[in-house]
């Protein structure tokens, strides 16, 4: 009997590794090895044109140029980081809140046309980011749908703008209403911090970047909504009935019952959103190529442009690595918060 079990264990071990072989093989070649390459090349000056074997090892030079040396490299990196942060800070709360709201509404037991609404809201999520970007480029033209709708609902007050060519920052526009412009700004706002003037740091997302943010929200709401729906359906009906008997109104039910129960899902959705928004690339590639005035330059796009167009693969690899560290840290912080809240 004992030998039987042993033999079975051995067979299991063989079968286990055998079943794993295809996946392990693929992972080794296309995930694990590339990661070591990524780390190695971030310490070289490889230009992406000459053979990689000729890349010179230059220590932490790329990281020094990106983080410590005042100049265009650092300015571009922090500009991209700033744009990406504004993007994330705008999109994640917006899409999470709207998705949650729609999920709660669509989940109502007595709602009619339920599946129509669900389908309609989810539909943009299944389409190609490239096709959608093309479509929004069309809608964002000066004489396009977005401007015309805005004009209609403001009774002609809205002045049409060329969305994707407008570098004005949202906060700059708002400051302007109160008479604060670059000319009137106090001196400290013109001082450089990490190669960017304070004034630039507080620009807010540019109009063009907001265009991409709206698009991104529009396409992701559906997925997030469905995730919330799945979680909502797990909430036992009795919980709501109990609340109703207690005489709670719908707002009280939402904040008192639904939201606390959805907390894990909420954090899942936020993490997903953070990771997604920190990598935004496709839309930028098609719609703006980082312009106007580098206000849609995201970290992901900077990696691509430095590496594959401007022949600075080593530098690009270093930026990618820094991006990874940032995302990783954010996720850890996120997890810490989740666990903290659970207690």
């Amino acid at each position: 009997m004992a030998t039987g079990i042993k033999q079975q264990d051995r067979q299991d071990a063989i079968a286990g590794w055998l079943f794993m072989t295809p996946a392990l093989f693929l992972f080794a070649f296309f995930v694990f090895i590339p990661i070591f390459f990524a780390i190695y090349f971030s310490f070289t000056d490889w230009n992406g044109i000459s053979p990689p074997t000729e890349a010179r090892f230059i220590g932490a030079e790329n990281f020094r140029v990106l983080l410590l040396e005042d100049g265009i490299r650092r300015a571009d990196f922090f500009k991209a980081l700033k744009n990406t942060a504004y993007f994330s800070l705008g999109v994640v709360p917006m899409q999470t809140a709207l998705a949650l709201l729609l999920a709660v509404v669509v989940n109502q037991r007595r709602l009619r046309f339920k599946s129509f609404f669900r389908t309609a809201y989810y539909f943009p999520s299944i389409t190609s980011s490239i096709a959608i970007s093309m479509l929004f480029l069309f809608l964002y033209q000066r004489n396009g749908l977005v401007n015309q709708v805005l004009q209609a609902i403001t009774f002609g007050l809205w002045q049409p703008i060329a969305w994707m060519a407008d570098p004005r920052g949202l906060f700059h526009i708002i400051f302007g209403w109160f008479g604060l412009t670059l000319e009137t700004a106090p001196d400290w706002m013109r001082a450089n911090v990490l190669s960017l003037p304070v004034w630039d740091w507080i620009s807010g997302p540019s109009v063009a970047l907001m265009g991409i943010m709206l698009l991104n929200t529009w396409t992701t709401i559906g997925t997030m909504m469905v995730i919330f729906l799945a979680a909502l359906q797990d909430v036992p009906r009795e919980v709501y009935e109990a609340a109703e008997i207690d005489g709670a109104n719908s707002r009280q039910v939402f904040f008192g019952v639904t939201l606390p129960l959805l907390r894990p899902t909420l954090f899942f959705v936020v993490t997903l959103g953070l990771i997604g928004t920190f990598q935004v690339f496709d839309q930028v590639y098609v719609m703006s190529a980082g312009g106007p005035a580098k206000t849609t330059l995201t970290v992901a796009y900077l990696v691509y442009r430095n590496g594959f167009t401007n022949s600075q693969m080593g530098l690009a690899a270093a930026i990618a690595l820094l991006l990874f560290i940032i995302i990783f840290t954010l996720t850890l912080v996120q997890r810490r918060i989740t666990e903290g809240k659970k207690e």
Partner: protein
Amino acid sequence: MKAKHFALLTLLLAVALLLAACPAQPVAPAAPAAAEQPAAPGVINLQLMGWASSDAENVRLQEVVDGWNAANPDIQVTLNLVPDYDTKLQTSLAGGAPPDIFYVDSFRLPDLVAAGALLPIGDQMTDVDDFYPSLREAFTVDNVFYCPPKDFATLALEYNTDLFDAAGLAYPTADWTWDDLRAAAEALTDKDAGVVGFAINPDFARWIAFLYQAGGEVTTPDFSAMTLNTPEALTAMEFYVGLVRDGFAAPASDLDSGWPGEAFGKGRAAMTMEGNWIVPYLKDQFPNLKYGITELPSGPAGKATMAFTVCYGVAANGRNTEAATKVVDYLTGPVGMKAWTDLGLAMPTRQSLREGWLTMYPELEPMLSGAEYARKWQFRPGFADVLDTINSGLQEAFGGLKTPQQVLEEAQAVGEQVLAR
């Protein structure tokens, strides 16, 4: 049902594994693969890579290449025109199987030279002195003439004659000054009709003509220092940005267009400044448009325009560099060059072809005349950073977010970093 399902699954998997098993085998044979085709022993197959242009241009280039192929059965050239060219060129050079011959823009040349990607073949061409000296210079780095120019284009002023007639203005001439341009742009601007006098983009490659017309320079001749933070440069930038800020000029995006040529074709701008490429474009897209072409106006320091040119580069690590050089010599030689430029899309880079071309295209004379005083579009490796900075700065200056002085200071600083690398 289930058995069938699994059969299908297995079949698809088999296909996948089969695919995985065979080595890289592109569907259309790339150059190196084709070279091993047994059907034609001794034949050298070359790949010529360029970027896609207008249909007319693509077709003509194919004809020229076909002409070579018919006459030279031992060296066969395949034309491959790709989008997103800079990226594709870089990745295919890095990919280890570079195209044998490829377009090189003069602006990009220093980067490729610095990366050791180009074989210097310029001096092996037939009658090298026949090329315009300014164009040869555009492909010369440290006194080495790397590759022969395939054609060139210069910036000129295009004007919509109908709009000029309607405004009762005389057409622009070669001796216009900046003041004439500005006055005409102002007179032609019609806010209600959504028409501006002049379509210009926030683009270094256009503004630079004004910089030279104002007597400014980007760098010292030996590239030892940047010279953008000068009164001349400021004059040029204030003039260029001023046209937009005052509402007499606008970028294409404000005119619902993808580029200034489109805005001009749609009649949304009475003038624009583009090169030869606008001619076939307007003919194709806006056949009814009535317009004229003249030289760019003179600035405080006289006349200047830009020459944009592209050469045929040969890859330093190519497999058949000798054959490739021969093909390039044909394409840029008197016969190939004539066949290519007779279409009128771009101008011949050989002085000996000048007269013949002018008799065919007298209306494009202003563009050819520009060659006499045109400046090259070529700087140092890494100058893309300066280009980006100025383009961004112009964009912000157009929107009133930065002053011309700030834009120049920034560009100066970035340029100094690039030169110091």
